[in-house]
């Protein structure tokens, strides 16, 4: 792959990511936002491949698109009456939000590009990263790995407990 095609493909995925994220934020319809978020997640996963983190890209697609996005869509469909087409959402604090959006994004980009001298080494990550993730998980990061798995288990049990259909409250009322 020549350098030019690499650059063109990078800019293509960057444009997909940024413009679909803009559509997520500025669309008034929640369903449109959710489906636009799909393209954002895929674009970010493609950027992860550019960063030679292929395992993270696949994890992003499985967890975000297959899990979180489906959860969000379920949330949209549970909490809106589809038949009434009441899917529009209002916007408040529009002007302060826009000012903050421009100020924070511009400030961050200015700081990143001009005020910082990042220490980048010659040895970049190259090729597939899967094998090294396996070694790191089972050596240096074994304690965080176990802790995060317990946390995920607790969170999922808690979520199922919170969202369950409450039979006892109904029977108490009768």
């Amino acid at each position: 792959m020549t350098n030019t095609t690499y650059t063109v493909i990078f800019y293509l995925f960057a444009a997909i990511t940024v413009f679909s994220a803009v559509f997520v934020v500025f669309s008034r319809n929640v369903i449109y936002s959710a489906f636009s978020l799909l393209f954002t997640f895929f674009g970010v996963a493609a950027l992860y491949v550019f960063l030679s983190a292929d395992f993270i890209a696949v994890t992003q697609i499985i967890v975000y698109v297959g899990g979180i996005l489906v959860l969000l869509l379920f949330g949209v469909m549970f909490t809106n009456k589809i038949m009434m087409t009441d899917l529009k959402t209002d916007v408040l604090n529009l002007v302060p939000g826009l000012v903050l959006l421009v100020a924070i994004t511009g400030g961050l980009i200015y700081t990143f590009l001009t005020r910082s001298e990042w220490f980048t080494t010659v040895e970049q990550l190259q090729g597939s990263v899967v094998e090294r993730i396996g070694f790191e998980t089972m050596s240096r990061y074994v304690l965080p790995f176990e802790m995060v798995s317990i946390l995920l288990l607790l969170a999922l049990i808690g979520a199922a407990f919170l969202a369950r259909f409450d039979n006892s409250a109904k029977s108490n009322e009768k």
Partner: protein
Amino acid sequence: MDVLFTIGLDHYLVISAILFGLGLFAILTRKNAIVVLMGVELILNAANINLLAFSKYNGGMEGVMFSLFVIVLAAAEAAIALAIVINIYKTFNTVDVSSIDSLKE
């Protein structure tokens, strides 16, 4: 012009800054709780791009491992938050975060 055509660390940082700003905008201005959650996901993705970019251009594995943990925490956060939103909807019959102002029914 050479800066534009050779992809480096700065390109990823700019994309993540834009995603962060958009996520913050969604959290601040939208009334629907689900869209606020989407803003949180955008911010987490921006953080992940930063971690992986620094990891690539530094040659270490720290950013890759942390981005994996961030994805796990994002999954836990989304599950809990959706459960809370569904409970709010059962109680108040709306998910408009600006009209929910009491802790009891």
